[in-house]
Structures are given as structure tokens and as C-alpha cells.
């Protein structure tokens, strides 16, 4: 593949290397030292296609409106048996003994405000909120962790399983 007079990156270059962003391809480099211009980076994208078989294309054009969604739940267990299930939304779910908590855990060794589950970057994370007895994930005391299907959370005497189902919007 030839791109003409310089090593200017195509949008596909950006998508492949930097992913995630909908920003212009080289926005990431805009803060670079002004006295050291980079050859090729300020070239408009339409000139690239004249020299290249690679067509400018945005991530959105490829992905369209399809975005996988996941339903996630916290399954509360008592003596190993499922006692209740809470569906998580894209907000924040606070867990603790306090009646204002989204997930109330009236059990020994649970702090008033113990931990929270937050939806961030399309994933759910659990974060300990300075509890007295700690938050454990699969037996490890954590400050914070991205949750994965079947993770075992221990908050005081509360035993919780994180359940995740991936579904598409069409379903």
C-alpha cells in the first residue's frame, strides 16, 4: 500500500491502534510540541484515498447502531442458596446496611455504606467504599475490580454472585 508523500495514517490506522474514540484520527497528537511538525499528520483524509486502496471509514459506519448490551444481576445468597436477585442498571448501586442503600444487606460485618457497583466504559465495576471488613472478590480483598460473569463477592457475611448475560438490542 502506498500513501504518497508521507506516512500519513488512515482512519483505519487510528481505529486499529487507538480504538474506542470517535474523535478525528490524529486528535490524540494535537497537543504535541508545536515546534516539531509531524510530516503527514495534517494531511486531509480525502487526499489519502487518492493514493491508497484504503477508504476512509468511521467506526460508526462499520458498527452502525448495533451495540451489544448486557444484562447484569447481583444474586444474593444465604447459606449457599439464592435468596434474591437485583438487576443492575447503568447507574450506581450502593451496597450496605444503611436503609438508603440500593442493595440493603442487614447482615453482620457489613458496613453502613460498604461498596458500590458502577457502570463504566460498558462494564460493571465493584469498588469498596472504605468498609471496615473489606470487600472480597473470589477470595481476594480488593479496592476495585471490573466484574466478570460468575464472580463471587463477599461483603461481610453477605455472599453475592455477579451474573451477566450478553444480548443484542434486537432481542
Amino acid at each position, binding site marked *: 500500500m502506498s500513501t504518497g508523500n508521507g506516512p500519513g*495514517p488512515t482512519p483505519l490506522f487510528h481505529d486499529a*491502534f487507538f480504538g474506542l474514540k470517535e474523535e478525528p484520527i490524529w486528535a490524540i497528537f494535537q*497537543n504535541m510540541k508545536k515546534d516539531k511538525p509531524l510530516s503527514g499528520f495534517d494531511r486531509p483524509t480525502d487526499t489519502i484515498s487518492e493514493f491508497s486502496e484504503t477508504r476512509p471509514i468511521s467506526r460508526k459506519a462499520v458498527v452502525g447502531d448495533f451495540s451489544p448490551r448486557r444484562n447484569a444481576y447481583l444474586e444474593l445468597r444465604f447459606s449457599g442458596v439464592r435468596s434474591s436477585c437485583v438487576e443492575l442498571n447503568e447507574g450506581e448501586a450502593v451496597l450496605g446496611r444503611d436503609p438508603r442503600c440500593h442493595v440493603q444487606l442487614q447482615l453482620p460485618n457489613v458496613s453502613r455504606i460498604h461498596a458500590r457497583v458502577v457502570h463504566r466504559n460498558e462494564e460493571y465495576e465493584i469498588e469498596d467504599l472504605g468498609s471496615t471488613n473489606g470487600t472480597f*472478590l473470589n*477470595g*481476594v480483598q480488593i*479496592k476495585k475490580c*471490573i466484574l466478570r460473569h460468575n464472580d463471587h463477592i463477599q461483603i461481610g457475611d453477605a455472599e453475592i454472585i455477579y451474573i451477566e448475560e450478553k444480548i443484542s438490542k434486537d432481542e
Partner: protein
Amino acid sequence: MIAHDASELLVTFWGTRGSISTPGRRTEKYGGNTPCVFVQQGDTQIILDAGTGIRLLGLDLAEQLKEQRTRRPLHLFLSHTHWDHIQGFPFFQPANIEGTELTVYGSAKKERFLESILSRQMDVDYFPVGLADMAADLKIREISDEEIQVGSLVVDWQEQVFHPGGSVRYRLSAGGKRVAYATDVELDRLFRPEIRGDRDKGSLKEYLDFIQGVDLLIADGQYTEEEYFEKVGWGHTSIPVIIELAKEAGVKQLAIFHHEPLHSDQMLDFLWKEYNAALREDETPMTVFWAREGMTLSI
């Protein structure tokens, strides 16, 4: 950004995979990015290795930079310069933001200067932006025999011999807490009598002294015992050996790290269950877990 006490020592795994990145559903739990660990205490920020995981750390730090009036210096310590430990560096966004103070540390025991090695991976044939074009205030330091004081943390280090090209292990200490980062080393060569030479006894003691009683040891545990015997001399440790050494040294928590690219989440879950069951049986107080991306521990 995590809300935390300024005295709290936080360790976050951004990349845990060894050798090459392994994206995909089979590795989403433990992660597919190559080594990068972030350690912070108050305003002190240390990064251990610049594998592909550093790209995501960079995005997170760049978000924080938008909210901060003052910029906190960043200190990147490289265990060595094999691909999987430096490949993410060109994509580390704070290095492309003017005003970022970034110091990179690494071994002086290379044929070429560290700066030369890092700049060669950003040669125009491999990457469109050169090292000298990065906007940050970038300093590259080859470590000497002295301890390094970085903000509230003291960093000391040792060269590791059993890895092709060598590698460095680091120990970070603050307020009585200690974290050791010792990846990319073939400890089986020191520990297994059938392949150990007499001259290696000193190295074994040196290693055990270095990790003695640490609160967290992040250690190479790439292979199962069966796999190891097919890969003697490749520079990585088998899981049973690192567990035995950590137990002997009274390590409090052991994070098995540098996961074999062929090991799926299912496989790592299986290994975790198998070894934890054995540790529970002999009532070892040490916690052993397989490091996973997106996990933060408070030490």
C-alpha cells in the same frame, strides 16, 4: 479515578498477559494486554512496565489530567525491553501531552543505551511518531546501585539472571508496606535441584531475601509444571515453583502474573481452584491469585 486515603498504597493491574497480547472472549476476565501495573500513594505515581496495558492506563490518566490543576509526575520503571514490556509506550497518551513530567527507568546493563532501545521501536519504519517528538517532558534514566526515592516511595532493585537478555526486579516500599514486582525470570533454574548449578545457590538466597515478607509479590508464573519441561531456558517460571518460593519467604499475597498466551480464562480459573485447594489443605496463610486486568488492591 479511585477515591482513596493519601496514605493508602494502591496497586492496579492494567496488563497481565505474557509474551503477546491476546484479545478476545477467551481472555476477557484475566485480560489480554501485556504487562503494566500502576502503583500510587497520594501524589506519587509509579508505572511498572509499558506493555499494551499502558494504553488504557494512559487514557485513564489523561481523563484525570483534565480535572487536575497541577500535574503529578509519572515514573515508569521497565523490567526489561522485550516487546511485551515496551510495546504500549508509543500509545501512552500522557507522553503526548505537553507539561507531563515522565521519567523512564531501566537497566544500564544493555549493549545499547536505554534511550536508543526505546527510540528504535519508534523508528519511522515501525511507528509514525518518533520518541523525540513526544510532547511530554521525557527523561530516561539508567538505574545505578542507589535506591531511588520517588515521592513517598522508595524503589530498590536487583538484576535477574535467568531471562534471555536479563531483566530487573523492583521493590517499592512506603510506610512499612512493600510490593515486589519480579516478572520474566526462570526461577526453576534456581530452585529445581535437577537443573540447578552450584553457582546458583547465591542467586536463590538473594531472591528469597528480596521478596522476604513482602505484602504483595507480583511474580512470573507463566507455565504449569508440565508446560515448563517443554520450555526450559525460555526465561519464565512454573506455577508450583513460584508458590513454593513465596511460601518460603513468608509473602502475604502472591499475584501470579505474565499469563501464558495460550491460557484461557477457563484454564486460569481451573489453576486457581487447584492450587488454592492445595494451599487451604496445608493451611498456608498466604493468599494466591491470578492477576487480572482492572483489579485494584489496597496494600
